[in-house]
């Protein structure tokens, strides 16, 4: 099975809604990364691993803070892939890397695709890479069967939504509101209508989220999407030294 299909299958095989959990690699500590990963793997259906970047322009304060600290802790993309290679086989949950583009540029696309596939990574999501600019990275990933997940937002026009959903791999990331990650936690009023539109346009599973932090939100999003993405809230749980698996379990309806 291609790495990218493992993501799709992981979501389809999960108890609805699937939980997609985000953590910043090496935060709060480098030493705790593998343990955090294992704990999250026991409770999530897909894991997004954040590659820290110096200029996270689409992220709110929580992920800004975790990225800054992780960089200070010496976390790099090379280190992350080494760590993942070291625990390959121990974690069966599909893994995605979430990274801004420049760390990937610095690594070099062909080498990155090979190393990521070898480390057991199923794909990437790149918040500052719109579809129009994605061909070189997409081509490099295609050789290894890695997914490049596309984002859609409530502001995406209908024809563009169609195109993004067709091109997305693994799943479609439906951002539930405009803005940066984390922050306000109320779900938008037109959530149902929006997610129904995305679902109708997408041939693959749709996972939604932005600022999700309660079981009630997971339930509501889960009525209209295949999976729910939990990011900043989980990073804060790890930050406070609490059990991420327990937190994720508490979000299940």
């Amino acid at each position: 099975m291609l790495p990218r299909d493992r993501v799709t299958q992981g979501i389809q095989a999960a108890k609805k809604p699937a939980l997609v959990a985000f953590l910043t690699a090496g935060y709060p500590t480098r030493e705790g990364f593998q343990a955090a990963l294992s704990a999250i793997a026991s409770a999530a259906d897909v894991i997004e691993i954040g590659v820290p970047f110096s200029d996270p322009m689409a992220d709110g304060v929580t992920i800004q803070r975790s990225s800054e600290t992780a960089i200070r802790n010496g976390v790099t993309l090379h280190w992350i892939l080494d760590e993942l290679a070291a625990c390959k086989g121990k974690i069966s949950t599909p893994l995605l890397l979430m990274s801004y583009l420049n760390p990937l540029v610095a690594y070099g696309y062909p080498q990155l695709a090979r190393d990521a596939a070898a480390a057991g990574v199923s794909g990437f999501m790149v918040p500052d890479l719109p579809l129009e600019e994605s061909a070189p990275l997409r081509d490099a990933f295609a050789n290894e069967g890695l997914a490049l997940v596309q984002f859609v937002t409530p502001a995406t026009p209908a024809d563009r939504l169609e195109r993004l959903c067709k091109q997305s791999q693994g799943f479609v990331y439906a951002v539930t509101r405009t803005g940066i990650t984390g922050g306000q936690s109320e779900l938008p009023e037109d959530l149902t209508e929006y997610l129904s539109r995305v679902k109708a346009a997408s041939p693959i599973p749709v996972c939604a989220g932005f600022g999700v932090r309660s079981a009630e939100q997971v339930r509501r999003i889960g009525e209209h999407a295949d999976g729910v993405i939990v990011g900043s809230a989980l990073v804060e749980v790890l930050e406070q030294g609490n059990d991420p698996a327990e937190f994720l379990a508490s979000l299940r309806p």
Partner: protein
Amino acid sequence: MTSMDRDALLQALLDGELPDAQGRFGPFGGRYVPETLMPAINRLTEAVETIFTTQAFQRALQSELTGWVGRPTALTRCDRLGLQWNAEVWLKREDLAHTGAHKINNAIGQALLAKAIGATRVVAETGAGQHGVATAAACARVGLPCTVYMGAVDVARQAPNVDRMHRLGAEVVSVTSGDRTLRAAIDEAIRDWVTDPKSTYYLIGSAIGPHPYPLLVRNLQAVIGQEARVQMLDRAELPDAVFACVGGGSNSIGLFHAFLGDEEVQLFGVEAGGTGSALGQNSATLAAGRPGVLHGANTMLLYDDDGQIQETHSVSAGLDYPGVGPEHALLQMIGRVKYVSASDTESLDALDELCAMEGILPALESAHALAGARRWAQRNPGTRILIGLSGRGDKDMPILAEVASRKENNDAAA
């Protein structure tokens, strides 16, 4: 790259074929933004192609440039400085434009565009504060509320401009994240824009960012070079060399553009050499950087082997930026513009010299162009040199006072 490729790219640039439909200047440029911003970027691209080019818009802009900004700005011949340098020295005086720098050319143009496309508020970033002041003034002029993001380090070192922004009705947000200078201010302005891309207009201050900003800002700043070229031909001949400082690169691209086709005119961009050549000691992106992606564009950047953007240093807040406009990256690649750097010390000396010789206090940014030109004049005696004096130095008084007192302390210690 062959010289034929280089000539073809320059010709394409001169013919207006670059940026292309993807917003690319050769390999540089593009639109690397979060999906949330794509509808806004597409809307703006359409507005730049339609509204901006209409006669009505251009007439309104022209009327603001003459009646409110005070264009054309003067071209000043500097005989005493010229005698000192053994050169014929001319200054294009953007320091005489309203609010004291070239930034106003761009700010008023984009504020008019923001209004025309129905935006209800404006956000902007600022380094030295000149773009913030220009945006605050332009927004007051067209009647739009505005919020200016400014790094906490810059808020401290450019205090007079913070007061001016407040006075002109802008909300100033001190940015304490990231490197707390221009780069962090841009990150924060983009975060604001992402939150409400429909009614918020991001009024970017330099020829950087995702397409169409580098094109839009260059077109609004091109007036500098267009005027200067006519003024030079009126009063002398074309210059042998043109110098302008380069941070993001808006005043330089504006000055250079009219001269790109004049083969005999050498063009020089002067970056901030700071205190040394190591990473973190300067902001000499074109001299020391490599291609990468930041703030929406593929361009030359200062970053480490892991892709992390590097902190920069310059005595001048306006040049303290790890990236550069994509069009400059192309001009360097094809060799049409040479990029050099001037250190903090050389620039401070050049500032003092212009004060003493010509009675003009330049901005610290502009002093870098003077320093670069002075060094070139020493090796090329008897030449005619045009220098972009991008802004006035009143805003730099706190820094200049601090530098002076540091020097006194050092002298006392020695």
